[in-house]
């Protein structure tokens, strides 16, 4: 089962987990895992969602204690009572969700809970001086006096890292630090990581983006279903090896493309643009069309304007410009409700924030968007509603004991199916899906892909956003690529290659992206 970690020089191991197991009420999140962290190196942890990565690092950072097994720090067994305890041992963690106080300054955040006090009051000048030095060291150019809320998300991420560095963390855990960063910000982060590495800090790095891991990782450990399925030097592995360890087989189950023919053009967006508040375009005059029964994949890096494009089409941004046509007829409705009525539906990227009302039941979530359609006059007939819900639960194979249960009790994949079901109940002609496979396990992913295929076969046009190259290549009938708000390529399935897509996605990104591109295509 477990491939032994390459027995290299063991002297640089600072932290070692031995046979660690973590059981939550009923489920085993991590099973008998071994994991070593080496100083002066980026120790990558990778796995599908729910594979146990976050649980594993939470045990290192003292958020959770292991149910079984032991943690050795510098060869000595340790037990952390809480995060402060772990911090005292030199272990810092940058959480996936930022733990910053937006209403305080950068310096106040960096020194939160350990303020420099002189004569009974906080020495702000000294805090700011130290923070400034720290920011310079991290080459971020963030003003220590700036309010955190006023910073861009990438800068906030850097402040979070600075917080950990300021405490002289010897081991720094980063849980998906790049998920909210733009390409230039990722570059800054990588530079910071290289700098920390040079100073001997051990970095534990979690990410979903394999391209990224291949680039900065030194050692890699792969988790699957809570077990370690592989641990090697990064230099010894390739993408295929990682994928194989992650999902247990070479290829993901994208389900086979149907061989149905496409209908006429169902969605046309012309000259869609959206200006940023900070100036420039988030979506820069994009024109795109989708035929009935066609799946168009929209690839691009973070911040390329893909989600914004979908939101513009959906009518989320009142200031957006451009024309939308459904089946050739112009859409004049400006708001989301009107556009849903015209046959558009959106599966948002962030399920929790934009997709679900978590305190309502599965049934109530499913019918939320189509109540007016279900209603006879003012009345929503209970039987008709229950039947619709039952049908959707069956069609999408949503695993739920009773649709009256709160939707928050479902697993991520089933929640995603509820969001899809909600959109489908509005009987859309065009489905806009923003990262439909994000944050769900492999089985649910396959289900979602299968659902997309079958919807397309029923004549629905699908425009979906993804950051996953394999996904866009395997699922799409056509591939659109965006970079910096512009549509940079529109490729037919037959002519699309990984290299072309990556090249198009980095247009306008300068040397960094070009370098990334070269590494990928090499």
């Amino acid at each position, binding site marked *: 089962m477990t491939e032994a970690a390459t027995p290299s020089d063991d002297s640089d191991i600072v932290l070692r987990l031995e046979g660690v197991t973590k059981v939550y009420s009923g489920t085993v999140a991590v099973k008998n895992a071994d994991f070593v962290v080496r100083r002066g190196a980026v120790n990558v942890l990778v796995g599908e969602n729910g594979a146990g990565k976050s649980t594993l690092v939470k045990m290192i950072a003292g958020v959770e204690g292991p149910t079984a097994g032991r943690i050795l720090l510098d060869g000595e067994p340790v037990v952390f009572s809480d995060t402060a305890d772990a911090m005292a041992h030199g272990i810092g963690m940058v959480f996936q969700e930022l733990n910053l106080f937006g209403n305080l300054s950068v310096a106040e955040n960096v020194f939160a809970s350990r303020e420099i006090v002189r004569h009974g009051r906080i020495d702000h000048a000294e805090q700011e001086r130290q923070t400034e030095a720290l920011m310079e060291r991290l080459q971020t150019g963030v003003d220590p006096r700036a309010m955190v809320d006023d910073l861009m998300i990438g800068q906030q991420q850097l402040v979070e890292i600075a917080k950990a560095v300021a405490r002289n963390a010897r081991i720094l855990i980063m849980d998906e630090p790049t998920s909210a960063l733009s390409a230039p910000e990722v570059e800054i982060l990588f530079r910071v990581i290289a700098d920390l590495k040079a100073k001997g800090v051990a970095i534990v790095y979690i990410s979903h983006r394999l391209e990224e891991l291949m680039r900065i990782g030194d050692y890699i450990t792969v988790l699957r279903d809570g077990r370690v399925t592989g641990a090697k030097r990064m230099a010894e592995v390739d993408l295929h090896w990682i994928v194989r360890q992650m999902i247990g087989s070479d290829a993901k189950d994208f389900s086979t493309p149907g061989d149905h023919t496409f209908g006429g053009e169902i969605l046309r967006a012309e000259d869609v643009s959206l200006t940023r508040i900070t100036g420039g375009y988030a979506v820069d005059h994009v024109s795109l069309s989708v035929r009935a029964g066609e799946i168009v994949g929209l690839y691009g890096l973070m911040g390329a304007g893909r989600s914004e494009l979908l939101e513009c089409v959906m009518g989320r941004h009142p200031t957006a410009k451009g024309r939308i046509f459904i089946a050739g007829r112009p859409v004049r409705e400006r*708001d989301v409700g009107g*556009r849903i009525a015209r046959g558009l539906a959106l599966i948002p990227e962030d399920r929790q924030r934009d997709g679900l*009302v978590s305190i309502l039941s599965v049934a109530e979530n499913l019918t*939320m968007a189509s109540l007016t359609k279900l209603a006879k006059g003012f*009345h929503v007939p209970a039987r008709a509603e229950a039947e619709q819900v039952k049908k959707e639960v069956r069609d999408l194979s949503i695993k739920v004991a009773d649709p009256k*249960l709160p939707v928050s009790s479902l697993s991520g994949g089933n929640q995603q199916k509820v969001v899809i079901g909600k959109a489908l109940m509005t009987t859309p002609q065009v489905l806009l899906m923003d990262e439909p496979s994000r944050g769900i396990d492999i089985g649910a992913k396959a289900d979602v892909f299968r659902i997309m295929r079958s919807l397309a076969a029923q004549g629905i046009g699908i425009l979906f956003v993804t950051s996953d190259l394999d996904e866009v290549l395997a699922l799409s009938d056509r591939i659109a690529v965006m970079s910096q708000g512009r549509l940079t390529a529109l490729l037919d399935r037959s002519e699309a290659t990984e290299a072309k897509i990556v090249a198009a996605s980095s247009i306008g990104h300068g040397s960094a992206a070009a370098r990334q591109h070269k590494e990928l295509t090499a």
Partner: protein
Amino acid sequence: MSAAVDSRAASSARTSLTLNLLRLRTFIALFAVVIYFSFAAPNFLTAANIVLMSKHVAQNAFLAIGMTFVIVTGGIDLSVGSIVGLCAMVAGGLILHGVDLHNGYTLFFSIPEIMVIILVLGVLVGLINGLLITWLNVAPFIATLGSLYVARGAALLVSDGATFPNLEGSAALGTTGYAFLGAGTIFYLPASIWLLILVALAAAYLARWTPLGRHIFAVGGNERAAALSGIRVNRVKLFVYMFSGACAAIVGLIISSELLAAHPATGTTFELNAIAAAVLGGTSMSGGRGTIGGTIIGAFVIGILSDGLVMMGVSSFWQMVIKGVVIIAAVVVDQAQRKLQQRVALQQMAQLA
């Protein structure tokens, strides 16, 4: 092995029993206060007293129904008490003095017309609240705090702070019959109670069976998701504040009709009782959760508690303390129920997996 399964089944049966008891807690509380006062307070269970108490409860219950929808959307309406006062005063003014048309004529309205005008007035104040909150993005607490003062000030301005007495009206002007709403009976029950039953049923139907009702819950549960599902969030919010204003107008009419007098301080701090009744009935202050039935029961618990304590001769100072403790206890129990419910849901999921 089978013993383990048995014990698990037993424990899950115990949890579901506890859960049901917790769900019915407001009912149980209501039963408890009724039974307690039946023994402790003489005359408590007489028909006359029950009718009297119901009328007290009704005033609070109307406001609490409107408040429930507002709170379910994640908002709050502090202005209802002042709207009660303003509506009572305007109604009184219309009956006594009519509208001076400044050409030597004074326009008097019939009682049904006045009632419609007052309802429209209440809805209008609610509309202003709603517009402040949706268009101008003022936090509900602040917007309705502002209109609390404005409406109260307006109520005082109507009569320069004086009371409008003797609202019997005059037959010559066709303004008689105002007393019916507050004092009249239909089929042995006060007219105001019939009206409460009507409004409560309509509100409960709205909440459970209409798209608008479900949209109210969706907006309160997750505004962004609701908006992306095509729900017109602003319209929903406008509606709940307008509805709350209408409920307050009804109370203003009932009180001034019952007393046949309108006093500008009518309804002061009523908003707090309404919030208390809603919370006692299981409405979550963070939005998305609440029922009309629960709110009605909550209003009864609060009403019966204060009337019963008065009958027992408990000092009004102690009454306040007891009311406060009951409200806090209700919320604490509510939290316990949520936790248990979550655990049960997780267990069911685990069994499924």
